């Protein structure tokens, strides 16, 4: 199947040059690489401009409620482990109203691929600040406390014990394609932070500015090392690539190792 075969008939209603276009493309490319049958593909989102993505994808798609994509996807995947399940949405959807669910999903470690299109703003509701909005931008709008700083999603995901944490940029398609592909292949919960522009509610230079603060991680980056990953997650610049990838059996941030053969979230259903 070609990337365009993963597109539905709907034409995106995003603004011209919205960062979401790139992500839609990268996802369809990664799906092509992995040869996922569309009927075995599920895509769940919340609400927001970027959360419209499932509507443009040839899949069992669910454009659900603001902030609730992860619980819905968890239920689907536990009940239907045969479905390849992607979860997509924006920074407001994921990091504001939906933030709590992320850590629980990471902890539960059900095999979902969660892709957040972070444009640092609430696009759909016309430009309010999100948890990753730069402080200056928020302060101009009177919405940041004096000591406030944006959340660092990659750092938080690392701290949650998530086994796969990656970052891409909507403007670097070949790279994003490989990152998303690897995330989908990861056999447990995986997280991809995608830097994406909002051409309407961010200043026009935003996407470029962010892009110039990105560094693609070197090939030999030790992404199985939690401390190296934490360091790559901090600082003014954005590391792109697979920042952390835990091999099964490796200790989690709390130091514990879990037995894979213990009973857990019950998986009794066999469908097809």
């Amino acid at each position, binding site marked *: 199947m070609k990337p365009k075969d993963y597109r539905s008939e709907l034409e995106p209603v995003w603004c011209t040059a919205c960062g979401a276009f790139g992500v839609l493309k990268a996802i369809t490319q990664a799906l092509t690489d992995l040869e996922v049958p569309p009927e075995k593909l599920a895509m769940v989102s919340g*609400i927001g401009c970027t959360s419209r993505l499932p509507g443009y994808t040839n899949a069992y798609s669910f454009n659900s409620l603001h902030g609730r994509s*992860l*619980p819905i996807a968890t*239920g689907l*995947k536990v009940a*239907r482990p045969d479905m390849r399940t992607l979860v997509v949405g924006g920074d407001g959807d994921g990091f504001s109203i939906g933030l709590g669910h992320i850590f629980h999903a990471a902890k539960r470690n059900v095999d979902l691929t969660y892709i957040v299109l972070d444009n640092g703003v609430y696009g759909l509701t016309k430009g309010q600040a999100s948890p990753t909005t730069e402080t200056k931008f928020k302060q101009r709008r009177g919405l940041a406390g004096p000591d406030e700083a944006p959340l660092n999603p990659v750092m938080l995901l690392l701290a949650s014990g998530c086994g796969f944490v990656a970052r891409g940029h909507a403007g670097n398609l070949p790279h994003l394609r490989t990152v998303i592909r690897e995330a989908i292949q990861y056999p447990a919960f995986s997280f991809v932070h995608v830097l994406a522009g909002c051409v309407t509610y961010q200043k026009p230079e935003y996407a470029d500015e962010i892009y110039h603060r990105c560094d693609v991680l070197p090939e030999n980056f030790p992404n199985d090392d939690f401390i190296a990953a934490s360091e790559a997650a901090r600082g003014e610049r954005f590391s792109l690539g697979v920042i952390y990838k835990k091999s099964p059996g490796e200790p989690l941030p709390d130091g514990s190792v879990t037995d894979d053969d213990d*009973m857990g979230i019950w998986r*009794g*259903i066999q469908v097809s």
Partner: protein
Amino acid sequence: MSTSKPAAHHPPGPTVRRGDPDSAVVSLVGSGGEGAALFGELILSMAARQGLYGVMVQSYGPQIRGGESASLVRVSRREVCHEGEETDLLICFRTPDMGRFRGFIRLHEGSVVTLDSKDTGDLPEWVGTAGVHTYRFPFTNIVDGHEVAGDPKNMLALGLACRYLGWDADLGRHELRQRFGNRPALLSKDLDAFDRGYGSQDMPTMPHLQGSGRNLHIETGNEAVARGAMQAGLRFFAGYPITPSSEILETLIDELPGHGGSVVQAEDEISALGMVLGASFGGVKAMTATSGPGLSLMTEMMGLSAKSEIPAVIVDCQRAGPATGMPSRTEQSDLNHALYSGHGDLPRVVMGVMDVVHARDIMHKAFSISEGYQVPVLVLSDAYIAQRHQIRDEVPPPPAQVNRSVWREDGPTRFNLDTADGVVPFRVPGTPGGQYLAAGIEQTPAGTPSADTTIHALMGEKRWRKMDAIAEHTESWFRVLGKPGATRGIIAWGSNYGLLCEWVKAHPEYRAFVPEILMPFPIKGLEEWRKGLGWTGALELAHTGQFYKYLKTLTDVEGTRSLKRSGGLPLSMVDLDRLIRQAD
């Protein structure tokens, strides 16, 4: 001891009668840790073994751990779903502990009371102490003026109760061996205490209640809901612990995996229902269970179920509200929320559990409707049913179920309007060619998001057509109690069913109507039943008369009285009698 004087808020009714001759009621009052609940469970279990029926209820203070605790068991020759009005045998370790159980325990003139030999206190007047026979037993072990650990008091009490009931001592011993066979030290201690209690020659004895000899089954309301759902095909459950619903989650953790299903403890109630919708979107029968606070949190997600037409069953074990309220106490005050909550015109079905036995049956019906019509179904239970232990006959095989109609190649678009009952085959993920967009946003028949006034009107009509179809499907989903010719009528719902069973027996001038489904309401059945009635009342455990007001939206209830009080203890016959007199 002084004579019986009723409490201000429980004036006695003139028609209150003795416990019926077919049954016996035994109560135990103790402190936390003294095993009142275990006592009740063991009595009930012994009854079930003899083919007797029965009910056990418990009561405790605001703190779930520690504090006073009481249990009340009724055993009976016929099936009962009410714990009985008056206690035949009351065992109380310390008379001051009675304070917490005002309204929970009532004596009659033939009651037997067993108190500690060392206890010099009096029972409170409100319990009704005229004519009772008091017996003293040395429960506590006093050495040098201090109470020291002695025989387990609840086991002493068990022996006494067994003797009082006229049961064979071997029945009790067998019961204890079954229960504690794997802990021999404990067992031998318990057996000794049981024998000491049973051996107390002065303990009065009541005539033996003969059971059928068939081994009957004990279940709580929460277990029955969980098992009924499993029988109905439940394969995914997500929930968040909350009193008084947690045992549904716990029962399913133990039992659903064996039936090929999955259970997830969610991080909160929003995600619990979210997970249920995810599983159901996946074509799997799914359910959640909660209580008022959780139900309030689920409101937005319930709207998504209705809009995107994804089946979901939501069980609400009501407790006294608003807000955190009284978590362990019963009330019927989530009805308004169940019927009307959620922004937008949101179709949903609401059903009411009547008792533990009914709990299994209703789950079949709930899934039939939810799956058959692709709507959210709320099943309202309450603390009174949820936590009650009840003996029932062997479970009949499940009635035939309606299943979700499933899309096949060349089937209609997902939200096709050309459907008489509003239902369109469901596209189960994995089916080639069935890919579509489910959404919270309004959609065209093909699923394209839309903000068009006409599309919205057509889609709203389609969604609500289902409710008409369901109304037709369920028009006989109600029960009537009492003699057809009776001229006084009571309309009630949910757990008041049990009380009404007793009431119409004691008061043959009454008959009762109890809907099994509240929305859509079996209104034709009600109208038919009302014919020939004189006085009519609508009974509920909710301060504002939610059920009564709801009836007003359905039919003319001019002249029908509202019989109501807020929650806490369930309604007793005394309460109902008072409410009727006040309403006149």
